[in-house]
């Protein structure tokens, strides 16, 4: 993507949902209003999210994921063969229930709050996954646009659950083949619509390296079977590269964070990106969109061996805090990163979205706006110094 400016400011995707939108979402899920009626509410919410971002000086705008229940489960409305299931419903199929119970206790969340799209039949497309989002976004902003989509590893791992998926897909590798095909077709449609930046969300990769050794677990998602971490990471790299293979003319990023469902930092995963970078660097994407504002993300020196190998979507604002980061502090942080990345390799963004889960948004819209404004001010200061 041709960005004329240095240090383009962008978002990771989701925006805080207004209470009326959450209420409408519940009504739609309960079948009390139609999808079209819900979309009318969501249109207003997207317009507000665009306005907030534009006013805050964001260069690459997202629609706030306002139409989504969460960053990946929305696919159940767009695909045949998928059923949205709560963890409380999956408990009957979980092998290690006691292990799940321990995680629920540690996270202090109810099982009904974690929802996953589960492949219960052969998966096929009904509508485009995010083409409605992209079309509306493109119609309502003149700025560059970003559409986040679930990554192929996340979607495969969260959707394949033993006891539920194995009739349609005896192995998750077989499901992965369909997931990759669906994502490729979606990417082509988004590209044709003129979307500038497609971000593939793969937060469950951090569970592979920082989480416990449980075969099934959940973090941002209820996660089905996994094997050893090396096998999982190889699998993730292969799926990513199959998904983006040969597609040019659109900017690709991969987003990996350590969880964004709670403001309690101690219940989220922690660890530096070191163990993940060898695999992330092998993914054929332009940019790594990473959280770096939270201390849980560890030290920046892990990039020393990978200088300028990829662009960095640098997380410089913690979406889960009340405190608005000072532009000067952001500038200082970016200067540390400039030891390993040239100025034209760095984009600035918050660590993650502000409303990854519609019903568990981690900040208010005004706070999100002020955080983005601080990032934009920092970007201006950096452009003056480095331009």
């Amino acid at each position: 993507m041709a960005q004329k400016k240095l240090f383009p400011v962008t978002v990771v995707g989701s925006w805080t949902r207004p209470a009326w939108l959450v209420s409408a979402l519940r009504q739609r899920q309960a079948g009390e209003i139609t999808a079209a009626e819900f979309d009318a509410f969501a249109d207003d919410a997207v317009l507000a999210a665009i306005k907030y971002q534009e006013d805050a000086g964001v260069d690459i705008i997202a629609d706030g994921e306002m139409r989504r229940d969460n960053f990946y489960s929305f696919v159940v409305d767009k695909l045949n063969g998928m059923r949205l299931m709560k963890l409380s419903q999956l408990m009957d199929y979980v092998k290690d229930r006691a292990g799940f119970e321990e995680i629920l206790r540690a996270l202090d969340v109810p099982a009904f709050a974690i929802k996953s799209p589960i492949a219960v039949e052969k998966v096929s497309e009904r509508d485009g996954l995010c083409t409605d989002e992209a079309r509306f976004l493109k119609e309502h902003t003149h700025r560059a646009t970003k559409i986040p989509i679930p990554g192929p590893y996340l979607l495969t791992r969260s959707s394949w659950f033993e006891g539920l998926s194995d009739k349609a897909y005896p192995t998750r590798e077989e499901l992965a083949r369909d997931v990759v095909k669906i994502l490729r077709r979606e990417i082509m449609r988004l590209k044709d619509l003129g979307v500038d930046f497609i971000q593939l969300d793969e937060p469950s990769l951090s569970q592979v390296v920082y989480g416990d050794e449980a075969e099934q677990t959940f973090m941002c998602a209820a996660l089905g079977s996994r094997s050893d971490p090396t096998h999982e990471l190889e699998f993730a790299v292969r799926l990513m590269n199959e998904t983006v293979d040969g597609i040019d003319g659109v900017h690709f990023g991969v987003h990996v964070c350590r969880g964004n469902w709670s403001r309690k930092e101690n219940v989220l995963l922690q660890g530096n990106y070191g163990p993940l970078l060898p695999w992330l660097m092998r993914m054929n994407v332009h940019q790594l969109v990473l959280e770096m504002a939270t201390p849980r993300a560890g030290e920046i020196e892990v990039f020393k061996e990978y200088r300028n190998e990829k662009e960095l979507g640098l997380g410089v604002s913690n979406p889960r805090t009340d405190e608005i980061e000072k532009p000067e502090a952001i500038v200082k942080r970016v200067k540390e990163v400039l030891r390993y990345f040239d100025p034209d390799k760095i984009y600035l963004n918050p660590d993650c979205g502000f409303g990854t889960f519609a019903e568990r948004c981690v900040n208010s819209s005004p706070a999100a706006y002020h955080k983005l404004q601080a990032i934009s001010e920092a970007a201006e200061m950096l452009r003056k110094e480095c331009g």
Partner: protein
Amino acid sequence: MAEEKTLNGLRPEKIKAITDSMRDDPEVLKGVSGPWKSRVVWQGGFRAKAYMRKHVVEMDEPEGLDATDAAASAHEQLLSAMGSCLTVGFVLNATKRGVRIHDLEVALEGNFANILKWAGHSPDGNPGYSAVKAKLFVRADADEKTLRELWRFAVEGSPVTQTIARPTEIITEFEKI
């Protein structure tokens, strides 16, 4: 014929009629008050089966106690009984007030005060739970104040919770066959 309205999987008018009859009809009150019964039959090892009306519940102990862990233990089921009773109380009161519940979970936990007494290594102390923590997670169409009040009603009106919370006379008998 008009279709009977339901809320939370219950019929609010029927629920009101039942609770009103408990208040107004001594025979109904007597029937609901008890006696409630359970018969527990040893199955070998630490396993047992509890027979209650037409229902059977199995119990065992964890493998750490050299048991087969074929079912939840009695002390876990006590927590579950309390959680279920709180759930019923919350749903009852919510339904009576027309509050629609979407999701509800109660997470319970407790630690034994002195389990050595159970193990035969301590003559004194309380082998039971020193405290029981119960946390409600609820998603419902009502404001927080209303839901907190419903939770208070559920806790204060829960027969199982209040049996645990209050000193209860335990009458034991014994017969050698």
